[in-house]
Structures are given as C-alpha cells and as structure tokens.
C-alpha cells in the first residue's frame, strides 16, 4: 500500500473511478441509453422504448448475430486447433527458426485488418483458388487475424509447463499420443480456454477485414451495425451493439466456468 492515510486512499480510489468511468463507463452508458432512445434532442434521450431490441431480434439482425456467433466459433475452434498444433510442434525448435515461425504467426496481428482483408480478396479472387463471395473467405479472414493469439497463448502455456510432467509420463510408458491426450492437453486446458475466449471476443468484434470480403449471404453483426449507423440509424445500431456485447459476454462467462483441475500446487 503506497498511500497510507485514509483520505489519501479515498482520493486515489476517487481518481481511479473517475478515469475508469470516463474511459469505459461513459461510452457504454451512452450506447445503452441510445439503444432505448426514441429521440435524443436534449442532454438526455426521450421517448424511451425497447423497440430497437424487438426489431433487432426478429429481422435481419438476428440472422447477423447467428452468422457472427458461427463465424466466431468456427474460426476460434480452427485457430485453437491449429494454433495448439503449431505451438506443440514448434516448441522444441532451436531459437533462430523458432523466432522466424513466431514472426510468421504474429505478422497478421501487426498488419491492419483492412489490409489482411484486401490481401485475401486479391489472393483468392482468381482460379484456381476462387473463394471470393463465399462464407469460407470470411472465416479464413477471422482465422488469420486471431490465430496469432491462440498460438501465443498456447505457446506461453507450454513454456510454463514444468517438463517433468511429460518426462515422468514417458518414463511410465506413455507413448507420445497418450501423453498428449492424458497429460499435456489437460494441463494446457486453462490456456486453451483463454485462447478460445480471446479469439471469440476478437472475432465477434471484427469489422475491418470482414467488410472487405463478406458476401451478401454472410453478413456478420458488426458489419450490419456499421451499415445501419452509416445510414444514420444510430439508435438501432446502438441496440445491436448492446446485443453483440451481451452475447459475447455470455459466451465468455460460460467459457470461464468450465472447470479445470489443472492447478499445480506451488511449494
């Protein structure tokens, strides 16, 4: 505790609360208010109603929400699978090639998502790989953007895993496949869940690359929100934003409740 006096502590908490309030609270409150606004001419909105939510839940928006969830789930699952595979395969590599592979994986997260979208569009718009206008290209775009994080998460988990677990398992007669299934992966579960959660949250909010590649039949919710607000329907957009945030939150909460027994006793 750096601040000793009671008033000093209260002051410190006050400043912190104010900062958090301005940075995180105000935008969220404004969106929440906008989502139930009929009109907003004064300081506060008027003609409050849940009409925007009702519209959201039965029109195109419901379909867009479903598209977003499916895209997020599929892309995250694929990213988790391939990211873990890559992390497992590359962990015993010498440092130099290891750094090269790390860079390859992390590159997409350093490039603007619009550029990733454009790149995919250019690359897959001609035979033999004509994916332009398919659902698949949206999922690929999401995968490219989030795989770095799953790879990074699982790599971090592997590097924190004491090597003795796998060595002892091997000495007890466990072949590599059995060892992976019964020891390594269960011990990595917390990292796998974290990787999936982060990927899913990122995918649910992705708009830059999606907007470059999405076909008319596979509109994700963020793209829908962008289109709505672009047409001036800010209140409807706000309702969808709230819907997106709540859905993502529910999924993340659900994931965080998956029990993991892989807690190592320290000391």
């Amino acid at each position, binding site marked *: 505790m750096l601040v000793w006096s009671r008033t000093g502590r209260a002051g410190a908490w006050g400043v912190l609360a104010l900062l958090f309030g301005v940075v995180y609270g105000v935008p969220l409150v404004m969106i929440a208010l906008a989502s139930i606004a009929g009109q907003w001419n004064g300081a506060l909105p008027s003609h409050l109603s849940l009409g925007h939510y009702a519209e959201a839940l039965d029109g195109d928006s419901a379909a867009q929400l479903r598209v977003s969830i499916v895209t997020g789930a599929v892309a995250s699952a694929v990213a988790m699978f391939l990211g873990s595979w890559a992390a497992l395969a590359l962990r015993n590599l010498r440092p130099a090639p290891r750094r090269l592979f790390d860079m390859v994986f992390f590159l997409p997260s350093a490039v603007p998502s619009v550029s990733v979208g454009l790149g995919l569009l250019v690359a897959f718009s001609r035979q033999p790989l004509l994916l332009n206008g398919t659902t698949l290209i949206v999922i690929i775009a999401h995968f490219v953007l989030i795989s770095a994080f799953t790879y990074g998460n699982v790599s971090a988990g592997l590097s924190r895993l004491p090597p003795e677990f796998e060595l002892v398992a091997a000495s*007890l007669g466990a072949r590599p496949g059995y060892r992976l299934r019964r020891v390594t992966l269960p011990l990595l579960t917390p990292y796998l869940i974290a990787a999936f959660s982060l990927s899913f949250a990122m995918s649910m909010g992705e708009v830059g690359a999606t907007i470059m590649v999405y076909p008319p039949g596979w509109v994700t919710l963020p793209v829908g929100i962008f289109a709505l607000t672009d047409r001036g329907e800010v209140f409807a957009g706000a309702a969808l934003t709230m819907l997106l945030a709540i859905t993502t939150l529910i999924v993340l909460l659900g994931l965080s409740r998956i029990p993991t027994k892989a807690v190592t006793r320290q000391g």
Partner: protein
Amino acid sequence: MASDLALDSARSVARSAREPGSGICFEDVTVAYKGTVVLERFSLTVAPGEIMAIIGPSGSGKTTALRAVAGFVRPVSGRIQIGERDVTDLPPYERDLGMVVQNYALFPHMRVDENVAFGLRARKEADTTVYGRVQECLRMVGMLNYARRYPRELSGGQQQRVAIARALAIRPRVLLLDEPLSALDAQIRRSMLDELARLHRELPALTVLYVTHDQTEALTLADRIAIMRDGRLVATGRSHALYRLPTNRFAAEFLGRANLLTVRREATSGAGSASDGVFARVRFGDVSLLARSAEGVSAGDECLLCIRPHDIGLQRPPAPVNALVGTVQSVVWQGDLHNVTLDLGADLGADLRGDLAGDRGDSILRLVSLPLREPPQPGDRLEVFFAPEDAVLIPAEAAHA
C-alpha cells in the same frame, strides 16, 4: 474381500521380489548439450538389486547420467544397458523403468489413484489388474486412505510417497530417483529415508539409481556410491569403504569433509611394527605418523593424509601411535557434540608452513567430540590422537587432480 485383496497384494509383492532384477550398465557414455560435454566417457555398472547413489556438486553431471538411463537425453557416444537389453536407442516409454523426481510431478488434474494407475493405463492393463496394483502400491507407501484426494490436497512428503507408488505400480526392474528428498524439510527427509530403505527390503530385486547432492542420504541408503565432478566419475566403491578409505582428495572432501594434511612418506622402508605393507610411516613437519598406505604412494612421495573429524580423540590412549599438538582456534557446541578446530601451523617448521599456504593441504584440523564437560578454550594448546587404521594416505597425483 478386503482380506483377499491384502493376501493377493502380499503374494504379488513377494512374486515380484523373487523375479531376477536387472542391472544398469553405462559404457563410455558421453552426453553433450550444444557442444558442451556434460557427461564424459562415463562407465558404471549397477548390479541387480543394488542401490547405487550418484553424488556430486551441482553441474557434476549426475542428473544427466540418470536422464540418459531414462532416455531423456541421447548420448553422443557409448551404450547404456538395462539388464540384458541395450536401451541406448529406445525411447523413454519403452524402457520399463520407474522414475521419481525432486518436485514429485504428480499430475495435478488426476486423483492419487489415477496418478498411480497412469503407467498401467498407458500399458492398457485390464481394469482388475489396475485396481489391484494401485491398492497394493498405495498400501506399500501408506497412502491407501488418500486414494481419492487430489495432489494439491497433500503435503510434500505425502506427494512424494504417491510419486514412489506411481513409479512402483508398473513393477519396474529399475527405479530412478532424482534428488527425491531435496524438496522436503529435514525431519520428513529422515523418515522418508527410512521408508525408502524399508521399501527396498520389501523389494530386494529392485535396482535403484539414486542421484543426490546429500552425502548423508547416499551413505544411509546406498550399497555403493559413485562420486562425480565436472561430468566425470571421480570415485566409486562400497559406501563404507569409500567413506573409510577415499581414493582421492575430492572423494575425501565431498563425502564427509575429511581433514587433509600434506605429509611426506618416509624414505625408510621399515616403517614400524604395524607396517606390513598396509601401513606406512609419514612425516608431518617434525612429527612422525603412521597411516594406511595407498597404491601410488611410494617412499619419499609427498601425499595427503586423510583423517575424519570424528576419528580424532582428545583422550590419550594407553599406547598412542599418532599424536598431534595444536592451538585451539574455536570450540562450537552443537548440543549433542562439540566441534573443535585446531591450528597445527604454529608447531610446524617454517618451510612447511609455506607449503601449507598452497591448496594441497591444511594446517587446520577439525575434530568432533561428544559433549565435553570442560571444553578447551580458544588459545589453549591441545594434544589429539588418532589410530593408524583411521588415517589413510591419498596419492599426490590424485590430490592434484
């Protein structure tokens, strides 16, 4: 039902105890990491049913030697045999050995019984076999009542017992113990040592390779001890013999902190009544001493005289053979014993004192005695005695090695 099980387990332990064990044989094994040699031309044979302790300071290559047996490191040259089988090129999971490591490495996501069953499940043993064997092994280490617990719910000593049960469940011919007690506190370490000794009495065919940096563990448990330093084997022998008659300076100092005095073997061949080739007369300054001779120490050679602190007495024996006089430097009481250090330097010739400043020997003599009613005071002149049987010469070549 329960008594049937107990009977079964007793029978199966007896059966596994009767089966012939497998020894371990290192043949010129060299291991290198990234060009650095950590184990150099290491050769050692562990007889079936024997407990061999490998001791040495950290970085001496002892853990590497154990890991080479387990198959976690691949030698760049040399062969390793377990029993009749050359395992040098076999992966760890085909070597059929049990292993216990310092931090237990119990799988945290499995209960105690699942941990013990792991090796059997990996071998696809039938459920009934697995159940019986898990019960048997947990009973052996006294952890049967904890079968349904998770490792994080157990103390360090309990975790190590489970780790031992897990290693024994697959009925290995060879058990590798890598500093198994280092993470435990002193009291539990002592009781685990007794426990390990008891386990080996129950499973006499089990060959044990025990890596430790703790000489007490090695001396208590091992039939034979191998001492390592800088990736090489420095000395090996039966525990008692190696302690009583170390063959080189490192062995003498690492195993039990011996006193080492620089002496010169007397040129005269007739070295007194006790000298029948086993004993030799040496000079320490102006003092003449009688000690066990060693190979490689010829008449006139400079060598080291090794004498254990507890073999030095303060009481004058009826017919003293070896006596030294020194000035008391310090007296430390430790409850059940007194530690006394003596400076012999003042009574030596000036030229020899110069020699002693080097790293070959010591002018300080440490001795341990039972608690003294009237302990000497620092500055006192003290005469001490030791028997020729308790002193051994170490060749100068080995001393310089």
